[in-house]
């Protein structure tokens, strides 16, 4: 996993609530057996019309947001299916962080396992950020995972919460598997102590 420490980048405003993983990547893109190519399916139904032409009104098709590495969206982002493909689609497209008032649990976990930083901020702060990036698409937003802050060029700053263990894993680029494999003795002992196992 690529480490995440700080990021200063432009953001794209997605003014929608309850963005579910079927929107992030529709099921018809899930027939692959690798992770590659998921970025092409990102928000496919919103990005493209039925003939495959880009919909000019969708935010990711607007040139002023072409460089965005941060996505800002409404509440309950990533609800629905457990498909990790949703996270792979966002990261392959080029996003490194998502800001929302709240995330669905499985999406949140999946994001952390792929170096995509989920940033929960209060509803009001998200609304202000959406307004700001709509007015100034090139505004550079600074994410500092160590300090757990989202900072704007005018000095305004918001604090966000993250579990200390997950934060450490992101900063170091560590995945869970190394930790779990190191627990082999404890796992075997657990299995022996539980005869039903």
């Amino acid at each position: 996993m690529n480490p995440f420490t700080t990021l200063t980048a432009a953001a794209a405003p997605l003014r929608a609530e309850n963005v579910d993983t079927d929107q992030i990547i529709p099921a018809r893109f899930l027939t692959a057996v690798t992770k590659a190519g998921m970025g092409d399916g990102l928000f496919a139904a919103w990005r493209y019309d039925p003939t495959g032409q880009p919909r000019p009104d969708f935010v990711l098709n607007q040139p002023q947001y072409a460089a965005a590495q941060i996505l800002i969206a409404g509440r309950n982002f990533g609800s629905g299916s457990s498909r990790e493909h949703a996270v792979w689609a966002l990261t392959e497209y080029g996003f490194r962080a998502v800001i929302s008032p709240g995330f669905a649990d499985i999406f949140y976990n999946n994001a952390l396992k792929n170096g995509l930083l989920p940033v929960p901020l209060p509803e009001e702060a998200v609304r202000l950020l959406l307004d700001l990036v709509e007015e100034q698409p090139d505004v550079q937003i600074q994410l500092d995972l160590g300090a757990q802050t989202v900072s704007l060029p005018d000095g305004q700053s918001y604090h966000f919460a993250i579990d200390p263990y997950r934060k450490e894993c992101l900063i170091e680029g560590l995945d869970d598997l190394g930790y779990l494999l190191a627990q082999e003795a404890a796992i075997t002992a657990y299995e022996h102590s539980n005869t039903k196992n």
Partner: protein
Amino acid sequence: MTQTPKTLFDKVWDAHVVKQDAGAPAVLYIDAHLIHEVTSPQAFNMLRQRGLRVRRPDKTFATMDHAIPTRQTEMTLWPADAAHQVRTLRQNCADFGLTLWDITGEVQGIVHVVGPEMGVTQPGMTIVCGDSHTSTHGAFGALAFGIGTSEVGHVLATQCLLQAKPKTFAINIEGELAHGVTAKDIILAIIAQNGTGGGAGHVFEYRGSAIAKLSMANRMTICNMSIEGGARAGMIAPDETTFAYLAGRDYAPKGREWQAAVARWRTLRSDEGAVFDREMTLDANKLQPMVTYGTNPGQGMPVSGQIPTPDQLADPAERRALLSALEYMGLKPGQPIAGQPIDIVFIGSCTNGRIEDLRQAAEVVKGRRVSDSVWAIVVPGSKAVKAQAEAEGLDRIFAAAGFEWRGAGCSMCLAMNDDKAGAGKYVASTSNRNFEGRQGPGARTLLMSPIMAAAAAVNGKVVDVREMI
């Protein structure tokens, strides 16, 4: 000596913590791991890249359900990508020595229908699968939740997951369901009241007199949609209904082990005085058949009601969500949902694809005809459900009415196979998600119970099934 009263969730969680380092999530042991063709290939790739084996093949069970066509079983006629996924799953199961319930065999179907049928799902277990509707298995008093593909890899390699402990949320459902009101209506009413994010970070425990009376199929319907309420898991304490369902199933304990297991399972209930982080109560007596009108499962209403108007919603975000949903759905604020024309009816899915669901739907359909304007399909949840339905003659009832009768799979619940609703079409569906495009690009889903969907098929529009039974 008194012990602190524990919830059902706490008992199952505590029994599975292998290790808890300070400042780290718990190492949680997994008793059963279910896999399918869509969310597992990348996990097996990871095992190969890192030279790892599957730690407990005896606790890992695979089937194929998501991408497979349900129209025919001849693989040469399948879309190439679905066939490739299925072949990949076969290869992975062969290479790593896993049990595979293949479409060529007698046992196969939607992973959350087959697991319980085979008796793999048991009270007190931890069960995971790379599928959010793993919450279904909580109906047996298991802690069961959906995971991403990275975590599928972790469980394959170590039989464990690193998990932060969720909070608990008691949902008390008291009273008696009226005739024509079902388990699906209970869960749709809970989500309508609580929102699709309402359960985030929590595990639901459904309890109360209305739950105690439900069959296992009905309990599975409710736990299945816990994820639609934002909770990763939902649980119901096991009781005589649970034990009667499990007795004699392939993987259920036998003989003396069965007796010991039942004795152990009887302790799996929330203690008197156990404290939940949150609690809500629902009066079953007041429930009506529910129908969704929007693009998330929380946008549901009683069949006798009118679609909300924006001025009824105080919250600007909710207003925006309502307007955008109604625009997609082609519905109007204030419109009664009864009478809404329907183009397609889908009866099936891990929510409502069990034999009890099909029996109830067939009861409504019997002696009637599907409306000329409707394309209607029944997709049994598993081969066992299909065989049982055929033994009871349900297939003939459906076929005589004009329904297509299919093989087992997920089918139009998520439209990964060729069962897709066309753009703009209204689908009365017994599945679990009414998201934009879920049942095909541009398709418009109205979620409801199997008997409500059957009634919609016959009438070509949303009707109150209570007027027909």
